């Protein structure tokens, strides 16, 4: 069968398989069997799957497990199409071939308005851009875990890989037994024929590898046994007995430990080091100077026989630090610069419809048309740290031009590339072992700590060394969620109907900075518009006749990075707080007001209605409590969140109940989705209540959980998750419930206090 026909028949057999043109998996992404290393008893059937002698199947796992459940969700796709029990699918880390790259994440990064990318409404230029980026992403093959994209990206590829493998295995059985393939049945990896013959996959694999799969179709939805069920996570048994191996847990023979100090002034460096006293301490071996790597500040590491001895010694080094050559960073000054930039120009216009200018002119009181009311508000969000529970770390061994790294990373190939560069070896001479990640949230899309560990290992005579950042280094040398400011304006008619919205915002763009430091070969000579700056502001789901949404990208020099839900994390606070303000101005209930604006957005409306129903939005409340709502779409998924909030005796906000409705397309594992919603709500709540990073004289003022607090168990709300039924392809899960938390909380607080909070965090420092 020709390739296109094959793809189309597979797509048709999948039922309502909605796949963007740009992300349709090329058949080449199934990969050839030789891509998988095999033991004597194993047979690879394509680049993703091999069959063991005992009939179990090994999946090449190209995504990192950082808590989001991907090491369960992806094998579920395989188990379904191969008719295996979930525990018959084993995982091995994938190699570096381009087939393992993340295509969906890169295609989703294009700055298109959702109306431009809807099936059936895509213009030729949108299709061409998606195709080109999809093609480029396939060529590049960047294996990245992020952008809530793992399941979306794997959805077709892994199911087709499994279905193709199954077809070959069945063809092998049919040939061996001389029976028609249609008469064969499969159950938990055992092929049987009514004549009584049976064979498990391991007995068929060697013959199957030479057989073309023939006509391949994906299993129709009504025959699913695995997908859509809350299967227990495969990684959890190891996480309740201490045996899961995180980055700091690897123990290669002869391991040394390294502790680190970087310039407390971001971008600074040591001017003078006096290490003698430190080097005389027990168990201490050497000091290694570290230049700036991949966006880090310069500093030094001390190597010792335990992390404690290294840490004691690194603190004992006498050092004079110097500021970066271009002057000290200061977050208050940057804030003033953002406000000035907002006043000066619009930057890039991400979306425009109707004629905002004309409407606003009409709403001007001097124009004498009181039928239109004009309103404006300024919003602000601070820098934020990721604060993963496992501090940054990497273990490296450099011996005879061979480099081995063990690292909790979201980007193994980029880690490999920088390790090769630092050690001066070819990429093929670097082996990467990806461990479990003690949280990622975007921080582990960076490779600064990898470069540092390799540099330290180069001085350790072939012995492996484990570089671990202290909590203070981790907090003070993050790639921060950038500070953003926004100015939102609207015009409402005399009925309170929203006629026009103009949003201007400003803040640092992340993507060009990340490209410069982690993918320098692809970094452009000039910054192009970065969707992450405006996502969640330029693409509002509401029916607003006149819109103009722009963002002025700045570049202040603070290291900025991708932080769980990225631009949505601040933009949803701006837009969904502002919508609440407009509802008040219109004299409407905030939920009813949104409902009215969503008349032409049935998916959003359904999500909102579910949250309204389950939170009993209109129902009675205990005295002293109020509800706040926010609705937001990100990573292709739609979330409505209702928070029930009171004020404690000290006026501290207390969230009692969080009711979250989510449409994330087809649900692969509802248990994991609920976990991720709970996680995202708590992550968003810590940021909304407490999260702020301040920089003075170049120094990050927060240094740990004392001054960068997280919500604890005693303050944690009960989170209830309600999933909408959908046949659409799966969309994001790990991030989409973060953005609505801050606005829902601010909206509830307004109802409690009558005070509109337009700046995060909501708790004073």
């Amino acid at each position, binding site marked *: 069968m020709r390739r296109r026909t094959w793809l189309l028949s597979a797509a048709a057999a999948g039922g309502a398989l909605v796949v963007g043109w740009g992300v349709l998996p090329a058949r080449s992404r199934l990969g050839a069997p030789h891509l998988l290393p095999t033991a004597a008893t194993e047979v690879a059937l394509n680049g993703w799957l091999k069959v063991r002698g005992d009939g179990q199947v090994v999946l090449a796992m190209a995504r990192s497990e950082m808590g989001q*459940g991907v090491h369960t969700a992806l094998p579920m796709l395989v188990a379904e199409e191969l008719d295996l029990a979930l525990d018959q699918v084993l995982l091995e880390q994938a190699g570096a071939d381009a087939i393992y790259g993340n295509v969906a994440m890169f295609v989703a990064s294009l700055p298109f308005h959702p109306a431009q990318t809807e099936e059936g409404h895509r213009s030729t230029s949108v299709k061409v851009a998606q195709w080109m980026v999809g093609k480029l992403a396939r060529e590049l093959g960047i294996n990245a875990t992020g952008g809530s994209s793992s399941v979306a990206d794997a959805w077709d590829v892994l199911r087709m890989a499994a279905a193709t493998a199954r077809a070959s295995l069945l063809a092998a059985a049919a040939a061996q037994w001389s029976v028609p393939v249609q008469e064969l049945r499969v159950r938990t990896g055992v092929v049987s024929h009514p004549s009584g013959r049976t064979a498990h996959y391991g007995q068929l694999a060697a013959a199957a590898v030479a057989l073309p799969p023939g006509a391949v179709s994906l299993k129709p939805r009504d025959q699913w046994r695995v997908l859509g069920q809350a299967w227990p996570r495969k990684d959890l048994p190891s996480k309740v*007995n*201490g045996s899961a191996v*995180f980055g700091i*847990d690897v123990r290669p023979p002869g391991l040394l430990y390294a502790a680190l100090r970087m310039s407390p002034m971001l971008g600074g460096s040591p001017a003078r080091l006096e290490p003698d006293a430190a080097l005389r301490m027990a168990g201490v071996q050497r000091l290694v100077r570290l230049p700036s790597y991949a966006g880090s500040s310069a500093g030094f590491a001390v190597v010792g026989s335990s992390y404690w001895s290294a840490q004691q010694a690194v603190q004992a080094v006498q050092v004079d630090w110097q500021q970066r050559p271009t002057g000290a960073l200061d977050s208050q000054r940057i804030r003033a610069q953002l406000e000035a930039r907002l006043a000066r120009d619009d930057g890039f216009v991400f979306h425009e419809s109707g004629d905002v200018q004309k409407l606003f002119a009409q709403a001007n009181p001097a124009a004498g048309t009181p039928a239109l009311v004009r309103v404006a508000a300024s919003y602000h969000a601070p820098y934020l740290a990721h604060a993963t529970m496992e501090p940054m770390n990497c273990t490296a061994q450099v011996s005879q031009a061979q480099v081995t790294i063990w690292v909790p990373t979201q980007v193994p190939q980029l880690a490999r590339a920088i390790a090769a560069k630092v050690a001066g070896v070819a990429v093929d001479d670097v082996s990467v072992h990806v461990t479990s990640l003690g*949280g990622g949230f975007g921080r582990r899309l960076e490779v600064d700590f990898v470069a540092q560990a390799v540099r330290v290992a180069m001085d350790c005579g072939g012995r492996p060394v484990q570089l671990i950042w202290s909590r203070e280094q981790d907090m003070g040398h993050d790639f921060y969620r950038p500070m953003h400011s926004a100015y939102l304006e609207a015009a409402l008619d005399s009925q309170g109907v929203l006629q026009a919205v103009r949003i201007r915002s400003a803040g640092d763009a992340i993507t060009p900075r990340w490209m410069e430091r982690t993918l320098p070969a692809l970094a452009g000579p000039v910054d192009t518009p970065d969707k992450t700056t405006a996502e969640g502001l330029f693409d509002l789901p509401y029916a607003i006749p006149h819109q103009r949404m722009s963002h002025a990208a700045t570049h202040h020099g603070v290291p900025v990075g991708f932080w769980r839900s990225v631009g949505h994390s601040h933009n949803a606070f701006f837009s969904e707080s502002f919508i609440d303000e407009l509802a008040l101005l219109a004299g409407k209930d905030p939920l009813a007001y949104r409902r009215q604006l969503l008349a032409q957005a049935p998916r959003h409306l359904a999500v909102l209605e579910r949250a309204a129903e389950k939170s009993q939005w209109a129902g009675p409340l205990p005295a002293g409590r109020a509800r706040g709502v926010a609705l937001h779409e990100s990573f292709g998924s739609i979330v409505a969140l209702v928070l029930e909030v009171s004020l404690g005796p000290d006026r501290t906000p207390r969230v009692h109940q969080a009711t979250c409705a989510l449409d994330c397309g087809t649900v692969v594992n509802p248990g994991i989705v609920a*976990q991720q919603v709970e996680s995202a709500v708590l992550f968003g709540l810590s940021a909304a209540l407490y999260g702020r990073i301040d920089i003075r004289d170049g120094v990050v003022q927060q240094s*740990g959980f004392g001054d960068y607090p997280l919500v604890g*168990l005693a303050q944690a709300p009960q989170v209830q998750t309600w999933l909408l039924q959908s046949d659409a392809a799966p969309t994001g899960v790990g991030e989409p419930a973060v953005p609505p938390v801050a606005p829902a909380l601010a909206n509830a607080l307004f109802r409690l206090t009558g005070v509109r909070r337009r700046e995060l965090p909501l708790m004073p420092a």
Partner: protein
Amino acid sequence: MELQINGKSQACEVDPQMPLLWVLRDVLNLTGTKFGCGVGACGACTVRVDGQAVRACVTPAGSLQGRSVQTIEALGTPQQPHPLQAAWLAEQVPQCGYCQSGMLMAAAALLQAKPQPTDADIDQAMTNLCRCGTYQRVRAAIKRASGQQPVGAAS
């Protein structure tokens, strides 16, 4: 010095000031106990000393002579998991999992002191931080392990 770790006597030639966390991790290769902050703020390093929950990152090894240390590695066995470990799986508590050793050890100490803890008891005892926000499942699992009705289990 001699330390009693997981029911075994261990001879450790270490500086008495060395925190228990690093003795466990770097000397004894018991890596289930995690490093999170180094100042006793997050609880990722929680172990039990004579049954009580203790933050190993701020507990000098020298203070432990004659006392009995239990780490996550000895909370249960594959054949006989601790009721908390079974409840943790039943409630599907962990996400990234990094803080969970400490969570479990703190919960084990709580259940030993209060076999039927109230919500207020749980609030007070479980001060460990979790960046993944597993708290409501931690609470449900503690209730389950103590034979109480788990409330607010995941829907």
